[in-house]
């Protein structure tokens, strides 16, 4: 594992990073009798995109939810920059700089792009200091334009209701919304599901932008094509355990599929994949 990730860092970042931005160790999580996660380790570095793949029920969403504070693990530890942390709620996760883009978009169709981006964290302006404060639309619009430009997200108007945007644009707005909080880690659960080709490209482009910004990005996807286009490492989950880790540049989809299904696992693992 160390070998694989080290080579990734070499190819991506100028200085080698040895401390993962976010690290999970020995995570166990069960729901009644179902062992959803068994002794799972996970790590993602700054400026890296990790693809999390696996069959349905492999435990991908559960693992993401442990990171985002939706589930509390039965066992195991979580570290940020090598410091142990406790994530007991989504608020904890957000406070620690972990942002999650949910599968079902958390946007208000009736509000415009600016309003959606700033929802719950609006910028204010004092009319009568201490007594009356109003929304600072100018400031919010200015920063929205700025952020969308940085992320290369193109939309006709930031004052358009998001209902009028395409699926890809909406997904980009949902991601941009998390960026405003200046997170360290961004988690995306199936960001390209139900998107067309052009829209998928838009979102993948955005994910690359996140990496350029030095964020640690985790993407769950069923689409191996997308995974190969955008990730640095691929972590395969199987039956609640982390089974294999691949360096995206030195592997191919067949090997990943084999790891996902568990077929011919031994044959493949000799070349690029390492057993855990």
């Amino acid at each position, binding site marked *: 594992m160390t070998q694989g990730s080290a080579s990734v860092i070499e190819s991506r970042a100028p200085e080698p990073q040895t401390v993962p931005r976010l690290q999970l160790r020995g995570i166990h999580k069960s729901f009644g009798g179902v062992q959803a996660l068994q002794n799972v380790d996970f790590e993602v570095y700054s400026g890296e995109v990790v693809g999390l793949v696996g069959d349905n029920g492999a435990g991908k969403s559960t693992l993401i939810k442990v990171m985002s504070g939706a589930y509390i693990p039965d066992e195991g530890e979580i570290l940020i920059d090598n410091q142990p942390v406790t994530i007991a709620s*989504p608020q904890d996760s957000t406070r620690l700089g972990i942002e999650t883009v949910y599968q079902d978009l*958390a*946007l208000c169709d009736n*509000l415009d792009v600016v309003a959606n981006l700033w*929802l719950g964290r609006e910028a204010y302006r004092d009319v009568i200091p201490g007594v009356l404060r109003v929304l600072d639309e*100018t400031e919010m619009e*200015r920063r929205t334009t700025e952020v969308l430009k940085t992320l290369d997200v193109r939309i006709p*108007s930031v004052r358009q209701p998001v209902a*009028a945007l395409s699926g*890809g644009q909406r997904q980009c707005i949902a991601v941009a919304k998390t960026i405003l909080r200046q997170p360290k880690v961004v988690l995306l659960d199936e960001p390209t599901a139900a998107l067309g080709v052009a829209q998928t490209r838009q979102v993948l482009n955005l994910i690359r932008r996140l990496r350029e910004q030095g964020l640690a990005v985790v993407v769950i996807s069923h689409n191996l094509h997308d995974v190969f286009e955008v990730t640095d490492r691929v972590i395969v989950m199987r039956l609640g355990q982390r089974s294999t880790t691949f360096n995206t540049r030195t592997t191919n989809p067949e090997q990943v599929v084999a790891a996902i299904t568990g077929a011919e696992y031994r044959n493949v693992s000799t070349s690029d994949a390492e057993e855990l």
Partner: protein
Amino acid sequence: MHDPDPNQGVSQRGNQAAFAEQPAHSGVGELPTPKERFNLRSLMRGDLGFIPVLLTLALITVYFQITTTGVFLQARNLSNLTQQIVVISILSTAAVLVLLLGEIDLSLAAVAQTCAAIMAVLSVYQNWNPWFAILAGLLAGAVIGLMNGFFIAVLRVPSFIVTLAGSIGYAGLLLLVLGRQTTLVVRDPTIRSLAPTYLNPILSWGIPLLLVALYAAGIWFEQRRRTQAGLTTKKPSHLALQIGLVSAIAVVTVLLFQSYQGVPQSVLISLGVIVAFWLILKKTPFGRHLYAVGGNPEAARRAGINVVGMKLIVFVLASTLAALAGIMLTSRSTAVATQISATLLLNAIAAAVIGGVSLFGGRGSVWAVVLGALIIGSLDNGLDLLNQDQSVKAIVQGGVLLLAVTIDAVVRRANPVRSK
């Protein structure tokens, strides 16, 4: 009428034009169909959404002006008409708040009359100071709203059921408060003078002109800030047109009132309520969050908005406004009755929906109230002038309401994938 504030409208179009120069759409490879749908939608829902309503109002006006041989548009009749719709306007503002949240309040009329009765009883039987009696009436409204809100927001009982049950219960409370009397005449001069008073010329001109000046200053200030921030700005000619239009409407309205007896105090109160809530909805985080909860409660919750608290506040505000409407009604009719008006609630909700407030939450502006109430009031007033029977009036009003709701539903369906 999504938002008649031309300010907002111009800025949106301005932005779109500016962005259109970038190869945004071509690069993305957008399919043409959603765009066309958006155009239809934006016409119906967006900046120009209020045009059909305005045309309808114009049509109604022309029809009554001809059939009443010129009586309809006389200053005296228009002054009457605007005073007739004061109660509906205030009640309808309450309805808008609740509808924006995606809920409904069927107890508004019952709350209005019950709170008015509480005020009347305190004034007549307990000889309370009129202002304390009025305050008690408003407070009763707030308490009732808190009760409605508790069941709806905290216990999550559908608002339809809670307020329907409430309307029956509050009607009973009204009977209880008034005892065996079917009507109670209010003699207090302060309460009686709330509605039928006309302002003196200085206030009649002063208040509207001050408001217009503030409006113009606000637009200028915003424009300056946008320029400083490097954002797209509206053309000066647009701004001039916008301010000119608002000033013209204000001046013509005041002139009209002045040519009869002056600006009615009740009309100013109802307009004050509408302007206040327009500002609250547009300019404050509370307003923004209200639209968010109505649009997507889950997204609002995830954004850290206290959805339960929002609902509680809105139902308290709605019932308090209803109490105010009831007090204005009492002042106008100088008495409270045990019989809950059958049309009051429907007219209030109809005015909101006719004005373009969606029954499905999150869409519409409080200005809807002005157009909606004017349409309903004009029909009522015009048919009265023509000596039409209550039966005809009811049929016409039912038809107009059905039409408005149908338009709302059809427009929503025009974009089934994205509307929530």
